[in-house]
């Protein structure tokens, strides 16, 4: 059982390793083969053909933060939905299907009121 489990993840690790070798090989090969002539305008950031103004790092608007926060919160919610989905059958078989359905329904409803709040307060509007 444990060996089977490790074997599965070994496959994943192999895929990652092969992917890394492929990408590394391609980038490495082009680095070796390509002609090099550094300097001048080649180091300037590309901005649709217009000369870039200022640095690459700028202060972002705080509304991005609210989006990131909402992403995090609903991500955590999603993490709880996965284990819920795989046990529906077991609960249904035990005659408690309604219980677990209502449970998750409430969980999502509570968080949806947070989304409702964000919409009502207009923080999701993009001016």
């Amino acid at each position: 059982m444990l060996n089977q489990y490790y074997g599965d993840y070994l496959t994943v690790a192999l895929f990652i390793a092969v992917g890394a070798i492929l990408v590394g090989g391609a980038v490495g090969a082009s680095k070796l083969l390509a002609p090099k002539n550094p300097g001048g305008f080649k180091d300037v950031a590309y901005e649709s053909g217009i000369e870039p103004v200022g640095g690459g790092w700028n202060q972002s608007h705080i509304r991005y933060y609210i989006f990131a926060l909402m992403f995090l919160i609903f991500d955590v919610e999603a993490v709880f939905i996965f284990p819920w989905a795989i046990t529906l059958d077991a609960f249904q078989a035990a005659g408690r299907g309604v219980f677990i359905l209502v449970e998750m329904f409430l969980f999502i409803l509570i968080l949806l009121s947070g989304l409702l709040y964000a919409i009502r307060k207009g923080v999701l509007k993009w001016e």
Partner: protein
Amino acid sequence: MTVTISEFFKESANWAFLAIAVPTLFAGWRTVTSNNIVRAVLYLVVSLGGTAGLFFMLGAEFVGWTVVLVYIGAVIILFLIGIMITRAPLGQEADLSHAMNVKAPAALLSTVVFGVITWAMIDAFGNNMIPPFEPTATSDLSLLLFDRFVIPFEVVSFVLLAALIGGIAIARQDEEVVS
């Protein structure tokens, strides 16, 4: 059952453990010592990835994937955006170190805490071999979570709701406040 050092290196799982743990430790170290705050966050990604890997090795699949999804996927994004909304000069090397009079006691304290925890761990487990274990099936976990721990489960949604609404209230622009 106890293990000797040569036996430790014969076990392939231990090599896998070292392959994960050493980069995790290194990334953790660089997270703290890096002078570029954006790089520190990216090192944290590596460190968290290693942590997820250790959970996978322990057969805690669900926890491992939660670390990947929530921490690497979302918390890091929040960190980066949190850095980007500040006025701090970004993408530059800056001397983030504290003065020696702050550093020295902190180093002493962390060394002592590390020493005490390590000593206690060795005292409790020594060089005992981990008994054979089965990977935790996520379905077993959820049978507990949605039955016995239904109260904390529902309370979690209130934690998230409070964080969401409080966070929005603190972060949003004030122009429409009714006084």
